[in-house]
């Protein structure tokens, strides 16, 4: 075995980098092994359009990252040209809504307030590892009690409403409140994006609350773009950990963990090299971690069953178009094209889409979220060109017929829709790059190609994430931890799983 480290982190995504940063600050000698030639994992400009800034609780624990985030507004496109633009700033939004959805104005702000309160409450659970039930551990009981108290402190009515909302679907809540279908469509989109839920599936509301908790507890206020894109954030995180003495090995695929007597001893790389450490943290998804890195001979049958049934099939594909000029969208200023544009005109539109995806079929009219970031940041492509990042939902993992056959059909569907809103856009295209969930699985080693390394649904959240019995960043094997998006509180570029995992590790070494 070669040189000794205190901690080896498998994978170099943002959670791994956050985790490494915190550990290195505590003088741990850390090695990061990343299979790809760059760090970042799923956090790359190729996949992510927008990213909220890290929350203060994460920021305060890692070294400062010098990135400018700018707020982005969300524009729901309408075929009639009456697009709905929401910024998260009350005065502006009020004006917009008074014009487009006068009946819904008051209810919108009421709902936003309510959801914001709930997402804040949820957010307060996010920053420590979830308690285990009945583990005769005082601190676990205390955590549960605190959690209950937090919810109760919202007041009797809110408590009741919160209890109701946990299992609610977003469509019901929106239909009870709003008349404007575009507004319903936009909020529903945010509630189901990245998930295997439709707006009428129970549980879609809690999905929205989770998203809001990561976006400044606001429906549309917390959506941000980083200068230089997500890549720049990663670069900055990477520079910081390197400064702290963390070693990063890229192009180093980790084949397996070495286990002796139920204790992790190090890792073996793809080329056969062995590296020793008594603590190994995997930022890979739960299935890869347990089935590939650890090996099932170290796990109990029930545990294996739970991992096997962990749902992690991605439903989002990505299309990047290179354009030779800025396309013209009906009733949109060119400057607005760098904002978050959403084509999701109604709840029924999404639900119909979802009907196709449930059984791995391709929807003829997918939901799109896109933007042209190069308008703001010309470093992203060649002079005179523009890139357009399009996120396609639902474009399921293992689509029936196989992606190799369905890719063209999917792109055609997307372009047909875009043509409706921006006639002539097809003629501007000079290049295209399509990434299906299967590509994500292959290229990024994420089983199922799921953004969040696993569905955000009640049975896979909190003390059940990724699976019950291993939701505290620890695995059953001593010294092996997890810090990826598959752990509590889940995906999104928040760094919270990485941060929480680092604390859990520090508690034990």
């Amino acid at each position, binding site marked *: 075995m070669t040189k000794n480290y205190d901690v080896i982190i498998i994978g170099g995504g943002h959670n791994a980098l956050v985790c490494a940063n915190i550990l290195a600050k505590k003088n741990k000698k850390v090695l990061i092994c990343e299979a790809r030639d760059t760090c970042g994992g799923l956090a790359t400009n190729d996949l992510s359009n927008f990213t909220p800034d890290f929350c203060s609780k994460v920021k305060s624990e890692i070294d400062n990252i010098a990135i400018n985030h700018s707020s982005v507004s969300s524009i729901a496109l309408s075929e009639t040209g009456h697009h709905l633009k929401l910024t998260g700033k009350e005065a502006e939004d009020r004006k917009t809504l008074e014009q487009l959805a006068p009946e819904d104005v008051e209810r919108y702000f009421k709902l936003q307030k309510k959801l914001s309160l709930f997402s804040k409450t949820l957010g307060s659970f996010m920053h420590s590892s979830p308690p285990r039930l009945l583990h005769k551990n005082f601190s676990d009981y205390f955590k549960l009690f605190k959690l209950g108290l937090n919810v109760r402190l919202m007041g009797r009515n809110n408590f009741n409403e919160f209890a109701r909302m946990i299992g609610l679907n977003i469509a019901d809540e929106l239909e009870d409140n709003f008349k404007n279908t575009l507004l319903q469509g936009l909020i529903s989109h945010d509630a189901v994006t990245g998930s295997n839920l439709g707006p009428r599936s129970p549980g879609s509301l809690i999905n929205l609350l989770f998203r809001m908790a990561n976006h400044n507890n606001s429906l549309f206020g917390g959506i941000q773009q980083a200068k230089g894109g997500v890549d720049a954030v990663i670069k900055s995180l990477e520079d910081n950990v390197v400064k702290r003495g963390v070693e990063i090995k890229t192009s180093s695929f980790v084949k397996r963990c070495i286990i002796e*007597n139920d204790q992790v001893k190090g890792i073996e790389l793809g080329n056969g090299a062995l590296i020793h450490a008594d603590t190994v943290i995997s930022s890979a998804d739960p299935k890869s971690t347990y089935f590939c890195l650890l090996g*099932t001979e170290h796990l109990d*049958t*029930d545990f*294996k*069953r739970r991992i*096997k049934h962990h749902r992690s099939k991605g439903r989002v594909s990505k299309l990047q178009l290179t354009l030779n000029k800025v396309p013209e969208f009906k009733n949109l200023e060119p400057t607005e094209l760098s904002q978050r544009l959403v084509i999701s005109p109604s709840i029924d539109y999404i639900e119909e889409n979802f009907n196709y995806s449930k059984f791995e079929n391709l929807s003829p009219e997918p939901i799109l979220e896109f933007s042209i970031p190069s308008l703001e940041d010309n470093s992203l492509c060649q002079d005179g060109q523009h890139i357009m990042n399009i996120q396609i939902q639902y474009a399921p993992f293992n689509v029936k017929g196989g992606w190799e056959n369905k890719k063209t059909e999917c792109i055609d569907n997307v372009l047909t829709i875009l043509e409706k809103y921006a006639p002539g856009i097809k003629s501007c295209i000079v290049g295209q790059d399509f990434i299906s969930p299967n590509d994500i699985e292959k290229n990024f080693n994420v089983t199922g190609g799921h953004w969040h390394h696993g569905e955000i649904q009640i049975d896979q959240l909190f003390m059940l994430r990724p699976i019950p019995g291993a939701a505290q960043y620890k695995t059953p094997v001593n010294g092996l931890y997890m810090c990826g998006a598959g752990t509590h509180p889940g995906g999104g570029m928040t760094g919270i799983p990485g941060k929480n995992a680092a604390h859990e590790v520090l508690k034990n070494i």
Partner: protein
Amino acid sequence: MNKDLTQAALKFSPFHNRTSRACRTNSWYRWSGYTVVAEYSTTELEYTATRNGTSVMDLTPMYKYEIKGERAKEFINYFVTRDLSNMDNNTVAYVIWCNEEGKVVDDGTVFCLNQNEFKLCCAVKMQTWLKDSADGFDIEISDVTDDIAALSVQGPTSCSVLKNYGATDLELLKPFESKDFIIDGYNVLISRTGFTGDLGYELWTNPENAENMWDSLMESGKHLKIRPMGMHALEMVRIEAGFIQTSTDFVSTEHALRPVRMRSPYEIGMGWLVHLNKESYFIGKRALKEEKENGTTERILVGLDIEGDKPAHGAVIYNKKKEDVGIVTAALWSPTLKRNIAIASLMRPYGSKIKEDIFVEIYHPEELEYKKIWATCKIVKRQFYNPERRNLVPAELY
């Protein structure tokens, strides 16, 4: 398409033509989806055959699984709590296996056919549990329950019967060893194993040979007091031998509705089969280690020697006639030992540290009137009956 128009609820064993002819009482028993004989003539005579001559019992309903592949041995060693890393070809091991909480799923026997091929025999359906446990091992597991006909041939004259039948040099076979034979042109695997606590063998063959095998055996044992044995007599001999039985002395985790009913190996007297120092991991190891280290074992399975001669079926056990401390899981007036014996599950420290002042409350029927008896009892080893001939090599011949 294979529609079963008869829709008989239970399957017939390949010996059914023979067993049904031999069964004079028409008394049947449901066993794992099969119908088998409960009693052929009288239970006592069948019992005596095991202790005096040879008894033959249809074992076909036992669940049987074949485990094949390069990692088969590694898997078996991971699957059961016992350390089988040195298991030799043609040997058999008694094993138990647990779930992740360290509670017993079932007990059974593992046959090592060769280092890449094993057979598991047990009382509870195990296909899905085996398959899910084998996830990641890349081995082949198949349910061969209906593909193997099995007979248990037990008793002091059993070796002689089988030698007459054609099993040459069988007396040299040691306990927990097995050997392949070709008899009358068909293959039979004979293992020196059993559930009776006596000298005995189990025979495994293809169902198409079943009737031939039965006939030849009966012919071979004609002068050696051979007799078919039903399920009732089996219950008697196994209690005398102190063997535990799933669904009687403990509930499999696969069947327990209430989690509190699940038992760890230490609670059913199977601690000796848990090898915590086994080098590799096995299912439930972490939980069992914790249980052992923290001393959290709640129950104990013991043998009881009860005063009087009234069997204590389902009796409640008391300490000082006051505190309820456990229950009798199986009981018998032993005809051979002339002792009133029972297997009982007690709440520790009763049975482990406190062994005095233990009573059972027996309700004994006497012509429709129940008499309540407070009987004192002694806590003893569960193995009540263990004759020397059981393990002798070469085996006793007649």
